[in-house]
């Protein structure tokens, strides 16, 4: 076990104000179960799950209430025991309306029978382990929510040689992953060992940004006697070092090809939260029914890292963290760089809710669409080496095909360009529109 500096420096990147001190040292607190939980069927990337229960049904904690619909999808489980009040559409963090199962908890929080882990996972069949993970409905808990069992079953023609555990948490404000590493390092270690076995990789790197010495230390302690090629790779504190492609480059020097996946360069990246969930599923047999999320922002009276049941509404979540003093101008589900602004607090916690952020009026800046003054700051900041200025100029004129030629699809929507733009141009929104157009064309072709 070593602690090493990441060898490579990806291009671009920015240094926002991190504001992590608001919640960095707050121990994870368990939130009492809210009076009503709305469990969305879209907790992950891909097709929403199919509801398995109907109004009036009694459910127990851990009982499957949504079934993965298709290859890229994930199961959903009841976060507590109680009665199904309704199966109705509810808003999601991105503004879509997706069926959700409303559960009124009975207060007993009774687990479903037959919850059991695979104690002897070291000798278990990989297929069995992956099946268990799929059954537990685990999907990436960093934010994107890619179903984990899919990630862990790469096709045979894509040999995996490196496992990267992503503890970078490069988004400003968020500290949930940091707290997980500090408080649950041992469990994360087991999770790492399980994934390592499933993928049968030798090289494991735990990626942590240099601004989290405590996490580094905790992980170092927990991993002290681990065998094999395991190292903590300390990343330069820079946004977006936590983005998959940038992280792989920083650690291995390999570039994930355009439109490709990490497995194309022999890597699998798992978030620390996901790793913990895998451990919970394999060792304890528990599906995902809760997650740790950061409720933060200057207007919040007591910012916290909260262990919260899925389906808890943002209103309840905020209430647990006090209230908002003075004015709130913007509510963001996720971090300030890639999170989604919310019109209200109606949305409910999902597996991908990495944080809930409140911004005061003076912390909100306005997009203005001034003309580009060609300062080149966006080009310098773009970690994908795109030319956001040029792309946005084209997309503003609705020249979508040209933008596609100039590889708008390579944009990872990290927001570095908009962050840097002195003309306050809505660059990322242009990129999103351009990408949406390309996707539409692709769908039309099919």
């Amino acid at each position, binding site marked *: 076990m070593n602690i090493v500096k990441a060898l490579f420096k990806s291009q671009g990147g920015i240094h926002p104000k991190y504001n992590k001190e608001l919640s960095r040292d707050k121990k994870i607190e368990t939130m009492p179960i809210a009076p009503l939980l709305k469990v969305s069927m879209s907790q992950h990337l891909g097709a929403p799950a199919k509801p398995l229960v109907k109004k009036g049904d009694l459910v127990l904690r851990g009982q499957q209430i949504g079934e993965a619909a298709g290859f890229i999808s994930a199961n959903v489980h009841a976060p507590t025991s109680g009665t199904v009040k309704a199966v109705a559409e509810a808003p999601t963090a991105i503004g879509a309306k997706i069926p959700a199962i409303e559960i009124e908890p009975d207060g007993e929080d009774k687990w479903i029978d037959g919850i059991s882990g695979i104690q002897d996972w070291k000798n278990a069949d990989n297929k069995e382990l992956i099946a268990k993970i799929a059954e537990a409905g685990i999907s990436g808990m960093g934010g994107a929510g890619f179903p984990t069992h899919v990630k862990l079953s790469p096709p045979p023609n894509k040999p995996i040689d490196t496992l990267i555990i992503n503890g970078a948490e490069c988004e400003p404000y968020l500290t949930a992953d940091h707290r997980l590493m500090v408080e649950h390092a041992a469990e994360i270690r087991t999770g790492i060992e399980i994934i390592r076995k499933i993928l049968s990789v030798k090289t494991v790197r735990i990626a942590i940004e240099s601004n989290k010495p405590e996490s580094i230390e905790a992980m170092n302690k927990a991993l002290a006697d681990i065998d094999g090629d395991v190292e903590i790779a300390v990343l330069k504190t820079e946004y977006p070092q936590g983005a998959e492609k940038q992280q792989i480059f920083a650690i291995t020097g390999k570039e994930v090809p355009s439109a490709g996946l990490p497995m194309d360069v022999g890597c699998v990246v798992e978030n620390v939260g996901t790793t913990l969930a895998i451990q919970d599923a394999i060792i304890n047999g528990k599906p995902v029914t809760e997650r740790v999320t950061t409720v933060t922002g200057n207007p919040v009276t007591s910012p916290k890292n909260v262990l919260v049941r899925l389906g808890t509404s943002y209103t309840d979540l905020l209430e647990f963290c006090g209230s908002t003093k003075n004015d709130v101008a913007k509510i963001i589900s996720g971090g300030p760089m890639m999170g989604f602004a919310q019109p209200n607090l109606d949305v409910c916690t999902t597996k991908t809710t990495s944080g809930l952020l409140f911004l005061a009026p003076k912390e909100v800046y306005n997009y203005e669409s001034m003309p580009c003054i*060609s300062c080149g700051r966006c080009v310098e900041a773009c970690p994908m080496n795109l030319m956001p200025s040029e792309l946005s100029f084209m997309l503003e004129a609705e020249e979508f095909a040209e933008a596609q030629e100039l590889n708008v699809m390579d944009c990872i929507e990290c927001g570095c360009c908009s962050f840097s733009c002195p003309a306050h141009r809505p660059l990322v929104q242009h990129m999103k529109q351009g990408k949406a157009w390309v996707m539409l064309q692709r769908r039309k072709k099919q």
Partner: protein
Amino acid sequence: MAQEKQYIVSTSPHAHSGASVHRIMLDVIIALLPAVAASVYFFGWQALRITAVCIISSLAIEAISRKMMGRNLGIGDLSAVVTGLLLALNLPPSLPSWMAIVGCIFAIGIAKQLFGGIGYNPFNPALVGRVALLVAFPVAMTKWNDALNPDRWSGLAWAVDATTTATPLGAVKTALSNTGVIPTDLLMSSKSMINYMLGDMSGSVGEVSAIALIIGGIYLLWRKCISWHIPVAFIGTVAIFAGILHAVNSDTNMPISFHLLSGGLMLGAIFMATDMVTSPITKKGMLVFGVGCGLLTMLIRRWGGYPEGVSFSILLMNAVTPLINRATHPRIFGHVAKKAKTGVNDK
């Protein structure tokens, strides 16, 4: 309808670096202050007059033309002040005020607003103003004051043309075409070198003091308003080119230091060529741009009809900026060359 409290919703990101166009322009103005101070010291009232006239008329023309074209952006972004200031620094101190105003009309009204306002102008507005004046009033535009003229503070010498001389570059060029060799008394002694550094020479309002311009340049670099690429490539190319010429024949070619310090190179390379709107966006493109400016400047200075070529070269390179941008697109992350993609890049 009754409205509840509404939050602001936009796409990500929700954080910003705090940079603004206003701030960038303010930085450029701050960076130009040493040069303005130096010019006032060397040329007295005249410099102050030209500067004031240019800034005020630029602002006025900006406001008027924006109104006429129905653009509702205010003049608050300070870009008009920058243009006016830069134009003033490029004019001879003795230029009549009305001509300066004409220059501003060309710079702001035509070169900037006619092309669509800030961000859309292909040519550096201040340089367009200057070149337009040079073509329209060639005599007035090549009439230079001596620096540190004792009369420079006497009275309000608004329209008085003080003793006029040629710029160092101009003097050398004339002598060269008359006699075929550079007069030794004009060549750089260590004393004149220091004078040129400080700005004790004839020239346009802002170009004389290399030291003041370099201080401004360092400030801009520190504030990240410019990158080193254009100035270094520009000045470096001029230095190398001049060095080679001088080495080949030192009778007919001026030494490097003379080229670097005696004309408008510092002003051009640090402030004019680095104008964001009209110079390339990519770093590689900036290098190409700088080298191009340097080459053209030397071609004009050595073989062209004018003693000075900085303005023309920058304008010419402005014209090819879109091409340079296009040709120097950075390699996009993940667009790996074919070889590297297939070969397993394991170490």
